[in-house]
């Protein structure tokens, strides 16, 4: 695994060459397009700049989405970790709830939109809950696995040296499960984004999903494509931010894995 040792400019180049190539292709192939549905990339970027690259546009079109995403994803991670730790530490409880969890998590989050509307209305609250519900499951299940997979000897260490429950939780259980918690949160982030867009097509007056739907309904095809570009960029940036945090928090794990790979 040489990749992790590459310097960051090389890493960026490695990641960006394909998107750049595709954008260039898109630019040239669409340059003289007369199709209403596939306008030239140049005009798409013009409306993208107009819709998104200014404070007013960001405040109306992006900020509400970020707020929903932050609340929903945050709630999912917090709930998933807390409940996951409890279920992971009390195997009996987990055995008793496992079938229910398996059924609930099999339901696609967006399919619950109508029910959530009935339960919570169409406001911010409903959207946050919907995102949180959909994103909760990967965090929960990964946390349970993570807690269960902790080296049993470490629990014995905590008993011999008489750690309090809280100390054990924060010094052994959470760090021990953190690689799985992060893996779950990464999936949860992707799910959050999907549910965000879908939830914003109902009862919103701002945000990416609302913008997208509105553009499509008012036949503003350039803006619609621009919103897709914005969505792509948002997803990419969020993923990078997530990776930066993960790299920092799981430094030990990354290095340890690299060492295990180099000397099996």
């Amino acid at each position, binding site marked *: 695994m040489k990749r992790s040792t590459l310097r960051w400019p090389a890493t960026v180049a490695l990641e960006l060459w394909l998107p750049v190539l595709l954008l260039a292709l898109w630019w040239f192939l669409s340059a003289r397009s007369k199709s209403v549905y596939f306008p030239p990339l140049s005009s798409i970027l013009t409306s993208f700049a107009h819709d998104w690259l200014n404070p007013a546009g960001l405040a109306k079109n992006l900020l509400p989405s970020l707020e929903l995403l932050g609340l929903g994803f945050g709630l999912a991670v917090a709930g998933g970790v807390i409940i996951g730790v409890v279920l992971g530490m009390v195997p009996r409880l987990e055995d008793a709830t496992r079938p229910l969890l398996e059924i609930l998590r099999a339901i696609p989050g967006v399919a619950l939109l109508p029910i959530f509307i009935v339960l919570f209305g169409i406001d911010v609250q409903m959207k946050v809950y919907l995102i949180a519900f959909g994103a909760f499951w990967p965090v929960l299940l990964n946390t349970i696995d993570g807690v269960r997979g902790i080296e049993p000897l470490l629990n014995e*260490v905590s008993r011999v040296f*008489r750690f309090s429950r809280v100390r054990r939780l924060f010094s052994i259980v959470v760090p021990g499960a953190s690689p799985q918690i992060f893996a779950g949160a990464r999936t949860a982030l992707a799910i959050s984004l999907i549910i965000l867009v879908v939830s914003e097509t109902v009862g919103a007056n701002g945000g990416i999903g609302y913008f997208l739907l509105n553009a499509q309904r008012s036949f503003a095809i350039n803006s619609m494509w621009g919103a897709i570009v914005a969505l792509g960029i948002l997803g990419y940036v969020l993923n990078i931010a997530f990776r930066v945090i993960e790299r920092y928090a799981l430094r030990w794990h990354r290095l340890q894995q690299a060492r295990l790979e180099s000397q099996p």
Partner: protein
Amino acid sequence: MTVIGSSGTPRSSAQTESRDIALEARDLGHAYGGREVLAGVDFQVRRGTFACLVGPSGVGKTTLLRCLSGLQSSTSGSVYVGGDIVNAPMPGVALVFQDYSRSLMPWSSVLHNVMLPLRANGISKQIARAKATRALALVGLDDVAGQMYPWQLSGGMQQRVAIARALAYEPSLLLMDEPFASVDAYTRADLEDLMLTLQRELALTVVLVTHDIDEAVYLSDQVIALNGRPAQVADIVEVPLGSARDQVTTKSTAEFAELRARVHGLVRGSRGKSS
């Protein structure tokens, strides 16, 4: 069964003595599922003395140590630490695990691993750091090693981290499960002498499991030999070699050789009996 003070000592005087007994196993038995591993294990370790547990591999030394530490409740009999019956891990008792490498937290630096038990027992960060640094220095690990992750160190160094963690905790009873198994012969001799010095200076009570009979005799005030299936105390050999010991001179005395041969016979004897 040889038990200290059992040679005709009446019960009442045994009780007045109990202040001087740091650790006692009374008719201790343990079974995994239906399989008996220990049965009727009896011994006492006097306060401030060094005892080594020897016995063939698989005889139940780790099981015994786990029962003594309170990690595992015995299926019969009882353990007393400082006169109190042990039902769970007791304060002031540290254990160095045989599986030293898995007993260290991979996400914490070596220094933090050693500090954690202190922090968990309400000792301030500064003091914990000072004690941890000192303990690491005692086992020959410097600040550079302290900043590394345990899995970045060699096996022998990790083993010393586990020892340092127990020492930093400043236990009154220290239980060690083959603590020198992964270190080279020179470091091993150094660590043996370190343990002897610390044990004398701090008036520690140490119970150390080892496969190495030379080591057992060199370190011990008494060697407790286990054998049989289920395991019992075959004999307890008192080692009157005094408190000033030296790797070369002590090990070359005739007395040492004789004790060594005796313990050897006890451990080997188990093979003869069971086959």
